């Protein structure tokens, strides 16, 4: 039971990390969007992910016995202590890359969170119920963008293709389970992400096929995020994200 509690905390922090890292990436578009409405949209989506991260971190902090706060978890852990899945931390690159990643993750979260609503842990189920509605709305936005870019100019199509190639090796990790996470899934506390892969693939492939595009079927899966092994990019991101708390500990707005 104690093991299970530790694993649950680990799980919550992992999901919080996924959200906070993606949120920070999206917020990098603030004041840099291609036009004002898009700027506002990306910042709003970033805000939804901040909210999601807070709900997971707050719950983790409570289970830990209030030894540290949600802010401590976000701002006072190093790169190797962060356990987000790697796809979230990749730099925003160009707008096509940001939207293809977002579309991939929107499809993923719509499926994943819907199942997480069935968690035997009421609090997790409630967080998932709130978040899945937001992801559905995000998907409504990212999907038409992919179509528009893929069927737009030669350049926009090429940029979508480059994004698909870039993401090829990072999607697999979404569906790889760690042993401790599988234990939680067996107890119906969390979702076995492996079971989502076939649905995700068919949804994404059939949508891309409408624009005569294809997501390459990668045999390589870069993994390590849940164990704190990251790409070179996360450390740079955290140094910017954590700068203020690190230099002025305890600072509040």
């Amino acid at each position, binding site marked *: 039971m104690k093991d299970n509690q530790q694993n649950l905390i680990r799980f919550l922090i992992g999901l919080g990390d996924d959200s906070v890292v993606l949120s920070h990436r999206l917020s990098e578009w603030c004041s840099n969007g291609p036009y004002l409405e898009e700027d506002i949209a990306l910042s709003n989506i970033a*805000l939804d992910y901040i909210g999601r991260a807070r709900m997971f971190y707050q719950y983790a902090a409570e289970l830990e016995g209030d030894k540290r706060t949600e802010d401590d978890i976000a701002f006072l852990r190093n790169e190797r202590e962060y356990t987000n899945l790697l796809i979230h931390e990749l730099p925003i690159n160009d707008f096509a890359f940001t939207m293809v990643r977002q579309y991939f993750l929107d499809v993923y979260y719509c499926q994943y969170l819907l199942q997480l609503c069935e968690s035997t842990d009421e609090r997790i189920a409630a967080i998932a119920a709130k978040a899945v509605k937001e992801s559905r709305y995000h998907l409504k936005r990212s999907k038409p963008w992919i179509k528009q870019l893929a069927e737009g100019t030669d350049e926009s199509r090429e940029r979508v293709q480059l994004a698909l190639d870039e993401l090829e090796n990072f999607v697999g990790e979404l569906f790889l389970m760690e042993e401790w996470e599988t234990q939680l899934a067996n107890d119906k506390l969390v979702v076995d992400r492996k079971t989502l892969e076939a649905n995700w693939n068919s949804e994404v492939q059939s949508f891309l096929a409408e624009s005569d595009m294809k997501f390459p079927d990668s045999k390589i899966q870069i993994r390590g995020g849940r164990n704190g092994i990251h790409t070179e990019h996360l450390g740079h991101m955290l140094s910017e994200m954590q700068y203020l708390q690190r230099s002025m500990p305890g600072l509040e707005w």
Partner: protein
Amino acid sequence: MNDLISIVTPEFADRIAYRNSSAYGNIWDVLDNVFDPELPGLTIWDLGILQDVNEKDSVLFITVTPTYSGCPAVDTIITDIKTEMAKNGFNKVEVAITLSPAWTTEMMSPAGKAHLKSIHIAPPERNDVVNCPICESKNTKVLSQFGSTACKSLYQCNDCLEAFDYFKHF
């Protein structure tokens, strides 16, 4: 007045029934003076986020459910509730944030929707056919799926050409 606005949703009917059966009617009334900081004149009751008033060990517990998980107005709302309660002589007050039941726009009151329209924000529509809050035209288009706050998107009327906020159905 748009006919749709007067429709009482089952979710709102449940809320009003609960409020009317509550032993803390005076507290609910006090809270009718607390407004959403981003939506001038819309009370937290009309918005649908005020969920419960209760008492335990002579502390009043007021329960609120956030609209969107990242809504930055939550902290201000908590402060505003405590301030309004203090003004009315209630000092032992705790504000609890609950995620369940998850807020939906169906919890909004008919008066709240009418108020939104009066400040030229199109109220949420179940079928997402958005009427222009100024000239009533149904001939509108979306400019951006997100507007000035997480709960709104930006529309434009094709007839009177006015741009306006639409409170997303959620």
